[in-house]
């Protein structure tokens, strides 16, 4: 119960990797709040997993919505000790055929959303002089993937954002890191074609896609009191796909 007495906020916490992180945090004693955008069914399922998990619909692309939702948390006696920003979307398309909406939707959710959430949470954490943040990025943000110029830009931006934020907040004792998963079995990877999935799996040295639980283990360590000296890093979890 290493997170006993701690409050955690997970954006994008009602599906995929975010949900796996929420569940593990709850199992380790944390009080977990999961924000989601439109996935009401996922929210119902996630809340049913543990009495320590509550969910709330918050659109992270709206700064005012983020601000007031956080204020409610703090006023209810749940100042955020741990933030995991896992909210993210894809709109895969080759750049030459990309529509403005596909560009902006991805950048807004993945990068501007992180700005909104981190800005407000960091103000709390600086005041408390402690806190742990993990931003969920992607291998795509490191190596790029065809069809994902928007997604790669958002995640690459998120990695750089994370590094700068870590440098800004180290003096207050905050630890801020990014985690970049490779191919993981989630709704996002399910949008890939069977053929593309097989092709990608064949390139992974460990010979399979990862699971959300495997990513959650890494994130849990980074936000736990066991991590005392890792900050400003981007940790890649990809089954050896990149070395």
């Amino acid at each position, binding site marked *: 119960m290493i997170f006993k007495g701690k409050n955690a906020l997970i954006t994008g916490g009602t599906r995929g990797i975010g949900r796996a992180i929420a569940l593990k945090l709850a199992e380790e004693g944390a009080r977990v709040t999961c924000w989601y955008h439109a996935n009401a069914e996922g929210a119902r399922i996630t809340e049913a997993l543990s009495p320590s998990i509550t969910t709330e619909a918050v659109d992270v692309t709206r700064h005012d919505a983020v601000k007031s939702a956080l204020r409610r948390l703090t006023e209810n006696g749940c100042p955020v000790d741990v933030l995991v920003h896992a909210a993210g979307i894809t709109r895969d398309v080759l750049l030459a055929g990309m529509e403005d909406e596909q560009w902006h939707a991805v950048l807004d959710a993945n990068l501007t959303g992180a700005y909104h959430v981190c800005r407000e949470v960091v*103000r709390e954490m*600086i*005041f408390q002089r402690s806190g742990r943040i993990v931003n969920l990025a992607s291998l795509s943000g490191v190596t790029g993937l065809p069809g994902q110029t928007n997604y790669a830009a958002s995640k690459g931006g998120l990695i750089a954002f994370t590094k700068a934020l870590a440098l800004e907040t180290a*003096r*207050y004792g905050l630890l801020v890191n990014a985690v970049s998963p490779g191919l993981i079995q989630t709704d996002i990877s399910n949008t890939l074609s069977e053929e593309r999935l097989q092709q990608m799996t064949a390139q992974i040295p460990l010979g399979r896609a990862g699971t959300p639980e495997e990513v959650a283990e890494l994130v849990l360590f980074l936000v736990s009191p066991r991590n005392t000296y890792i900050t400003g890093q981007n940790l890649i979890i990809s089954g050896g796909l990149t070395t």
Partner: protein
Amino acid sequence: MDLKQQIKHMIIERLRLKITPEEIDDEAPLFGDGLALDSIDALELSIAIDKTFGAEIKNEDDGREAFRSINHLAAYIEQHRT
């Protein structure tokens, strides 16, 4: 305790200054000369003012005005308190 005294106590506590409230002049600048605080102190201070007094310092212009002295800061808080 009046507002100016509260502000002085808060500044000393948050920034762990090794001085007493009496040593802070109401008219002296908080940054540069005076207390010689830096921009990162300003960030922490502005957050603490928001949390303690409910007055948000939204940007650098607000900060420049508010942090001119203890007198200015007290006036700013009175004006922007929610």
